[in-house]
């Protein structure tokens, strides 16, 4: 079994993500779902359109999951991020991890969602009941301080 990460435009299936993890030596399984909320900063949301730099997001997501595997102590990690137009109540991200002990599972799962929010080249355009739409403010990802001269 190995780390699995992917980007999709299809609705997420929590059972499918859960089924990617688990092993006889594992005592803890954790599943996180990120969901589109009906309200944000006091405004009533209709949907969020997730835009992505797909090729890079796939690379960064795989990198984040590999880092998390180092913390988890197992390769039993599955992460899927959905893109496109998502309605309220729909899941945008699903993360499943399993490990012998629970502390590592909580730590790795939390690490993955925090890094997804910090580093994944994805942008959200929130659409409101009044017909307006706006790009949500993101975070500046960690960028190398210097390119290190000629390649």
């Amino acid at each position: 079994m190995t780390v699995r990460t992917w980007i999709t435009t299809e609705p997420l299936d929590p059972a499918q993500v859960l089924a990617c993890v688990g092993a006889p030596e594992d005592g803890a399984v954790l599943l996180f779902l990120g969901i589109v909320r009906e309200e944000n900063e006091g405004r009533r949301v209709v949907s969020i359109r997730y835009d992505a730099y797909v090729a890079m997001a796939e690379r960064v997501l795989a990198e984040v999951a590999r880092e998390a595997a180092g913390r988890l102590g197992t390769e039993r990690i599955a992460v899927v991020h959905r893109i496109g137009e998502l309605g309220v109540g729909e899941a945008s991200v699903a993360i499943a991890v399993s490990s012998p002990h629970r502390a590592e599972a909580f730590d790795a799962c939390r690490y993955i969602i925090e890094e997804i929010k910090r580093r994944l080249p994805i942008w959200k355009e929130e659409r409101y009941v009044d017909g307006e739409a706006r790009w949500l403010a993101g975070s500046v990802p960690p960028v190398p301080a210097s390119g290190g001269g000629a390649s």
Partner: protein
Amino acid sequence: MRVRVLFFALYRDLAGTSELELELPAGATVETAVELLRSQVKGLARLPREVVVAVNREYAARDTPLAEGDEVALLPPVGGG
């Protein structure tokens, strides 16, 4: 040399396109490309200073040297989840 430039989200709205080809002088860096785009592409004059750039799908520093055929992406602050 020529590089391929990609725009996402707000920056695509500003540029009015998702992609273009850019001719650069030899020795050009990310900084060279950003400044050229700012002056040549209508709408990108408003590109904020903190624009994040990825070269060949990796976040890149301003002094990263560019090469023929590189994929240079201009990214607003990011965030999945």
